[in-house]
């Protein structure tokens, strides 16, 4: 893959809880990304964006300028940001645009999501009887995984401890207070084996990225980061997802397996060549399982890797260097773009207190969500 598509500008509204609207947080991120890219809104000739609960992204043009550009709203659940990025990537590759914006933002009410069964093709009975909770799925997926592959509760807690530590070093993160393993393990059990501090919370925030054709990137940005691949996959038969009233005994792979493999293939690189990774950590167990699903280790190897600190900032493969979803919360529309923002920041060497100490050239991102979608990217300097 040639140096076809570059990220020339990155902008972020801090994640957390704020008084301004989700849309305003998106516009803030867009202005920051344009400033970072050294370009004007009028230079952008295509935009893709979305939120799941904070309005139509394209209405933002009234705050950024009515330039008449094509702006397509993207709605793809937890992969909304990733889908916006892939759309921008494809638009540039297709020759439809030279400079593109991908934007995601959101603002969710407090507490667990409360989706409508009908939106997921399920009968009303499923919600009536108390099965319509994403937290149950996460509990049951890692429960079986721990039983099959010998992952301990201590390892679950260590993932949260690491991500809260990384978040404490990141000024854009929501949760900035480090926690101990005991504090995580002894917290309220929400969905056995997962405690309160092993889960991320719905939150707020916005991220914008400005992409450009690789050959013009340096006109805007001294330190462009190249998007080597961007891939989205939906679920194959036999995968285990949120809100499945039944599963086939003929078990299959998660959509993350296919998305990650395709992203590495498109980039012409392998998981072992990645210097850092951001993987979906909706809860601690998800980060553990996604390490294997994305190809970074075999099932069960996470126990030693995490216990030995291999995924810490100073480890062999730092994971979720900005604190991940656990420390940043999950504004659904923005979450996948946050991972790419963080990767670009790290690749440029601009991550400050949470910059990984080793020199890095490559990065990987992975987002996963309902009803079984995954988006992955491979980036390099």
């Amino acid at each position, binding site marked *: 893959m040639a140096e076809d598509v570059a990220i020339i500008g990155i902008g972020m509204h801090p994640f957390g809880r704020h008084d301004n609207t989700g849309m305003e947080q998106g516009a803030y991120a867009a202005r920051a990304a344009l400033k970072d890219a050294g370009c004007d809104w009028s230079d952008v000739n295509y935009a893709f964006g979305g939120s799941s609960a904070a309005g139509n992204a394209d209405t933002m043009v009234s705050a950024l300028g009515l330039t008449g550009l094509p702006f397509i709203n993207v709605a793809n659940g937890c992969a909304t940001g990733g889908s916006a990025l892939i759309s921008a990537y494809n638009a540039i590759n297709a020759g439809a645009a030279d400079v593109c914006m991908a934007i995601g933002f959101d603002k969710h009410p407090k507490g667990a999501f409360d989706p409508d069964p009908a939106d997921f093709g399920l009968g009303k009975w499923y919600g009536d009887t108390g*099965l319509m909770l994403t937290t149950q799925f996460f509990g049951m997926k890692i429960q079986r995984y721990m039983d099959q592959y010998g992952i301990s509760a201590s390892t679950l807690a260590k993932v949260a401890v690491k991500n809260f530590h990384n978040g404490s070093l990141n000024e854009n993160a929501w949760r900035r207070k480090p926690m101990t393993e005991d504090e995580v393990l002894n917290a*309220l059990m929400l969905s056995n084996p997962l405690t309160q501090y092993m889960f991320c919370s719905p939150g707020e925030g916005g991220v914008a990225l400005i992409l450009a054709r690789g050959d013009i990137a340096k006109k805007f940005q001294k330190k462009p980061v190249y998007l080597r691949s961007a891939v989205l996959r939906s679920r194959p038969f036999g995968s285990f997802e949120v809100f499945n009233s039944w599963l086939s005994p003929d078990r299959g792979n998660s959509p993350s397996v296919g998305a990650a493999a395709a992203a590495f293939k498109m980039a012409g690189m392998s998981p072992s060549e990645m210097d850092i990774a951001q993987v979906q950590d909706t809860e601690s167990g998800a980060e553990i399982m996604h390490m294997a699903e994305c190809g970074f280790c075999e099932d069960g190897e996470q126990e030693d890797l995490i216990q030995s600190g291999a995924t810490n900032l100073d480890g062999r493969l730092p994971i979720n260097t900005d604190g991940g979803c656990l420390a940043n919360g999950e504004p659904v529309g923005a979450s996948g773009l946050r991972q790419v923002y963080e990767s670009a920041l790290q690749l440029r060497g601009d991550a400050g207190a949470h910059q990984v100490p080793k020199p890095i050239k490559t990065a990987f991102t992975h987002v996963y969500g309902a009803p079984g979608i995954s988006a992955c990217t491979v980036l390099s300097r």
Partner: protein
Amino acid sequence: MTKQIPVAEELFTWPSDSPQLIGTHYPDSGVTTFPQSTACPKTAAQNGERVLLPRVGKLWSWTIQGFLPKSPPYAGKETPKTFKPYGVGYVQLADEVIVESRLTTAEASELKIGMDMELVIIPFSTDDDGNELVTYAFAPVKK
């Protein structure tokens, strides 16, 4: 006289002394869905047949719902004060299908992947007339 009303029609056989879940079996792929469906998710075939599922199986995974779910969609009438955690799991019924279900126990020490489970019908709420709303659940098989 209060009645027991199933949460949905055609989810399980009711009333019955030995209730069974009702699914759809697709003869070409061998796939069985629960509840019933109109197309096979593997082959898209539309020639599914209504089948009654085995009443016993093995626990495939489990969790315990530790907090009161939001209403809607939850139709239970508990308050944060009266709420008691409930078990949720997947139970593999022979080689046919793995079904998601409430469990009759919420004690982690009583749940082990691979243990034998059997279908029961449990009340989970009441309607405005005081009738019991019932759903299916799996209970550990008593030795």
